[in-house]
């Protein structure tokens, strides 16, 4: 089913032409949007691009953007694949809370002197990730085998998950001191915060997984036409369970990043509304909510656009009440910029004026 190499080349060339209907084109506009936002930020704050080395850690707004975006980038990886199957995962924010709650409660047993192997930091991290995977399995089971609509199936965990996290921590927001667990959120390697490496590693790993095998193609085919995929012999249920599980794992990693960053698990607020930012980023990255074609790196780019915008708002002297409105306007502008219809409308407008 793979296109011939010569055809692929032709497609690539077509993609490079501006004004064509292709996702590559979308990439150009996403990058353009990011650059425009960064330039505006630079105009607002003169030292926006400056990066300093302080105590072996790079400090500066650009690093802050990457570091601050890392949790949502992790979410967006799983979310992209889920959305590519025409699904949606509303539970990622609460899965973050569950995973961080699990990790912090266990690690505090370790710090209190418990010797069992499952309290060792490395194992605790694995258990937290496994907790995320179980949440994802549950979502996948509801969607794939019980045929519950994804928005409802994951809504269940969105609501109950916060309760689960609160039960795990007994309603408190526990803190911890273990440096191994904290490293995931605040470690530094060669001056760069660890979450940035984690994002890159996951992006590359998952991209290899889906693009070096047929899985990516299968995901897209399930998203584009589930029935046709079924008749073509694709086990769409298994594909769906896989992407939701991966989304749960990504959410757990994001939860560990957020917990490590401030050395605490907050079952009430951790990951609150994070699912919306992740979905928004995936859409900005060009993956249609109707499923099908996806690109993980463009979703990550979408997160960077949102985070740059947020950082810009932080350094602007706008009153905080204006934040959400400005965010909405800029996101709308980015989406319009990416819309072929809107651009051709603008073109026509200019022609008429000229």
């Amino acid at each position, binding site marked *: 089913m793979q296109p011939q190499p010569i055809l692929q080349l032709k497609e690539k060339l077509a993609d490079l032409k501006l004004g064509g209907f292709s996702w590559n084109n979308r990439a150009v506009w996403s990058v353009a949007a990011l650059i425009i936002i960064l330039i505006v930020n630079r105009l607002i704050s003169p030292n926006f691009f400056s990066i300093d080395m*302080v105590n072996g850690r790079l400090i500066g707004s650009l690093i802050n953007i990457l570091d601050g975006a890392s949790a949502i980038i992790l979410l967006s990886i799983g979310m992209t694949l889920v959305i590519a199957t025409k699904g949606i995962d509303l539970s990622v924010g609460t899965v973050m809370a569950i995973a961080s709650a699990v990790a912090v409660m266990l690690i505090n047993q370790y710090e209190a002197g418990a010797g069992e192997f499952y309290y060792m930091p490395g194992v605790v991290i694995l258990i937290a990730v496994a907790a995320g995977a179980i949440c994802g399995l549950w979502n996948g089971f509801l969607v794939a085998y019980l045929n519950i609509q994804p928005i409802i199936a994951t809504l269940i965990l969105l609501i109950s998950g916060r309760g689960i996290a609160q039960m795990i921590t007994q309603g408190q927001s526990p803190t911890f001191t273990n440096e191994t667990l904290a490293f995931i959120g605040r470690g530094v390697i060669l001056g760069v915060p660890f979450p940035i490496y984690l994002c890159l590693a996951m992006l590359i790993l998952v991209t290899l997984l889906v693009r070096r095998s047929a899985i990516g193609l299968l995901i897209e085919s399930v998203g584009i036409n589930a029935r046709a995929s079924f008749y073509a012999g694709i086990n769409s249920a298994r594909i769906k369970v896989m992407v939701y599980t991966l989304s749960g794992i990504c959410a757990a990693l994001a939860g560990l990043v957020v917990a490590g960053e*401030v050395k605490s698990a907050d079952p009430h607020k951790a990951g609150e509304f994070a699912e919306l930012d992740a979905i928004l980023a995936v859409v900005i990255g060009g993956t249609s909510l109707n499923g099908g074609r996806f690109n993980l790196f463009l979703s990550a780019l979408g997160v960077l656009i949102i985070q740059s915008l947020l950082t810009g708002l932080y350094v602007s*002297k706008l009153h905080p009440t204006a934040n959400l409105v400005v965010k909405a306007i800029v996101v709308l502008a980015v989406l319009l910029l990416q819309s072929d219809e809107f651009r051709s409308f603008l073109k026509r407008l200019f022609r008429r004026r000229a």
Partner: protein
Amino acid sequence: MRNIRRIAVILVVVGLIATAFSTAAQGGGEGLTIGFSQIGSESAWRTSFTDAVKAEAEARGINLLFSDAQQEQENQIAAINAWIAQGDVDAIILAPVVTSGWDVVLQEAKDAGIPVVIVDRNVDADPSLYVTRVSSDFVHEGRLAAAWLVQATSGNCNIVELYGTVGSAAAEDRATGFREVIALFPGMQIIRSETGNFVRTEGKQVMESFLSAEDPANICAVFAHNDDMAIGAIEAIKEAGLVPAQDILIVSVDAIPDIFDSLDAGETNATVELSPFMGAPAFDAVVATLAGEELPKWIPVAGSLYTSRAAYDADHQ
């Protein structure tokens, strides 16, 4: 002569404090049965609020019927209806989950002759339906934080503010109180203000942005609308290679347990207590209203400012 006068003054002050304490300890209300409908146990603060009410009831010999609503208004209405139907409570203390939808049940309580005291969050019902509302004075908290900062900097300070959730009463009122006081000192200025939504990670991110947008030497202090955001800011300040509480002063509100660890470590300067001790004033209000006294519609509970764990512990024995 001077010494005698001083001793006399001290004696009078000690005497006043002693009477204040003894009345607080006795309180009144012995033998009363009071229903207390609490929101739930969603935070450490809520739990200590519940514990404080229970302890106060026990100290006063009040028979407290406690009902945990688990964040549901229906549960609260059901509990209040049950108390009214059984007719065995002398008064009801209600910590409402939400603001609206209380008129009917409050009217029923009023018709049954059971006074209701609202604690903590507000209700939008007709004020004639309840006795009074006992709640934290967020404006006072903001003023207190500002007053400390004014003193610590002799009225000269460029402040960055970590705003709470925009639109929440806690954030808006703390901001108002803080601004009221610094307005008296031309040298005190808020140079940046952004919301961290009362969350640690966001507090850290906002502070990181402030530190890269401003010359850190130009930032004299952080005012955080809650302790969590202050703890996030401490992390950001440390990452930027600065010394929190020295290079940049930090004052916040809530007095959660974690902030005292930071105070112990010398990484923050002061916190204003969001007082969970609303039991005593609520019971006082019940006793007063049963005795036929008219009460103001709002009884504010003001927390104090603490700069060390020792000071806090001394106040809460």
